[in-house]
């Protein structure tokens, strides 16, 4: 083998993977952001640390963790997501103990540990919520794992979110009986982006 051709093949091999990111622009993508599993690092650190082994999804007893295909762009392939409207997180913390790379920080399955989770924040669309219209509902309050702390109710069971305590598990969004949902979890990544500008 001539040395020149060898170097050319190395360069050819190195150039081939550089074309793959352009696939991401060819395929249809959604801008919708989903929740990350509990204990996830900040979005860019999480993307750096998650290698996409799928351990978290295979141990999830609630079947709420899904893996991205190509729809979330190249950087999101094989990373976990939680679609809260389909299924919320029950805060069992099995995924944080399963993660091999530390993309999900380990959290103990205690009351204190569960209250320390930050996946997102719940926001209520007061114009469509049944309770705000004077029809007692209170389903989100019943679904909340931290009732009274994260979600408190008033007259006609009007829900109020306490952003300081809300963990963003998505159980309220999952349970909401209004179509479309009157309570929504905004993922932490999106909140970060909004705060940044």
């Amino acid at each position, binding site marked *: 083998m001539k040395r020149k051709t060898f170097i050319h093949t190395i360069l050819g091999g190195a150039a081939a993977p550089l074309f793959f990111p352009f696939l991401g622009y060819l395929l249809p993508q959604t801008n919708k952001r989903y929740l990350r599993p509990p204990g996830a690092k900040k979005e860019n650190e999480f993307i*750096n640390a998650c290698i996409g082994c799928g351990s978290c999804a295979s141990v999830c007893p609630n079947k709420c963790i899904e893996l991205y295909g190509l729809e979330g762009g190249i950087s999101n392939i094989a*990373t976990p997501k939680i679609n809260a409207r389909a299924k919320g997180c029950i805060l069992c913390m099995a995924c944080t103990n399963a993660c091999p790379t530390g993309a999900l920080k380990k959290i103990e399955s205690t009351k204190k540990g569960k209250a320390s989770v930050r996946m997102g924040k719940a926001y209520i669309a007061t114009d469509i919520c049944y309770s705000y219209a004077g029809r007692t509902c209170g389903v989100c309050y019943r679904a909340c794992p931290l009732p009274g702390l994260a979600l408190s109710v008033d007259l006609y069971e009007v829900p109020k979110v306490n952003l300081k305590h809300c963990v963003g598990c998505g159980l309220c969004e999952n349970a909401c009986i209004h179509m479309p949902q009157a309570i929504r979890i905004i993922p932490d990544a999106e909140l970060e982006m909004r705060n940044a500008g």
Partner: protein
Amino acid sequence: MKKFKELPIGKKLLYLSLATRISVLLLISFFAAMNIFLNYKSGYNSARLVSLSSGPLAGGLYWMMDGFLSLFGNSATILQSSGGMTWSIRIFGFPFTDPVAAMSFFIKNRSFETGFFLGLAVPVTLAAVFGRVFCSYICPASLLFFFTSRIRRLIEPYFFLPRISLSSGFAWGMLFGGLLTAYFFGHGIWTLILPYFAMGQVIFHGIAFGTISAVMLSIIFYALLDLFLGQQFTCRYVCPTGRLLGFIGKRAFVSVRRDPASCLPKCNSCAEVCPMGVSPRMDETVNCTLCGECMVICPGNCLKPGQRDTTKNISDRILKELITFKQKTQNTLKETAEEK
């Protein structure tokens, strides 16, 4: 049907490699389906309720799984200690990590995660002792390529199929290019580069969520490469993991070993059949995956797995060859003399 013990060593290895690869495939499928069981466990915790809600088949499977696992403790915690796929897998809490995944992780984070890097121990030791055995005994994508190469062998007489050969530099390039791309665009890029990772993703999506992952396209692409550009083209020239493991296993302790005394002259069947493009006839052992194809085809029955031939020098090898040739000619001369 012959008994397994009576089979020649090459066939034994061939069947063993097929069996282990299929069991790895089943293991990945089981890990993908595991959360279905866990869901029933946390939701109903009773075989009767499962059979009422999802039919007697699901109920029976749940009953068997739960009954078996509860012999050892809480079935949910036992299952939750395993998970993952070929990229990074945990079996009862013991981690196994792909070297490429570890490299990609290290380059991006420049930090060590103890459990994750501990998982390197077994694959690297395996590669150092046995060579590229990952490729023929574990990699589920190579199972697919095994079948595509068989199809290629079947249709080769009727169609023109080129045999393209590249230098090993291409896979090195893929490795460095992949690491570079992963550094800028995230680790997800490896699903498109490594067929076994893509296969794990497709299985996971298919079983756990019931959807077909678009990553399937990359597997189809690599299978077509295999079919039209050369036997096991992807494994030979494209796959960066295989190249890396081949490099680690360059001085592997166990490899294919030739017995020069019974090797037939002018026979090149082992080099022609080898899926990795290795020529055991020339005592080449780099990249040998111990798949056993050459041992099956060898008419002189001279190839066996054994301790690697450590004579590095070409001149030594030629000397050895000459000595055996001299012995052979002497033997034939003796025989002819006896006949006279």
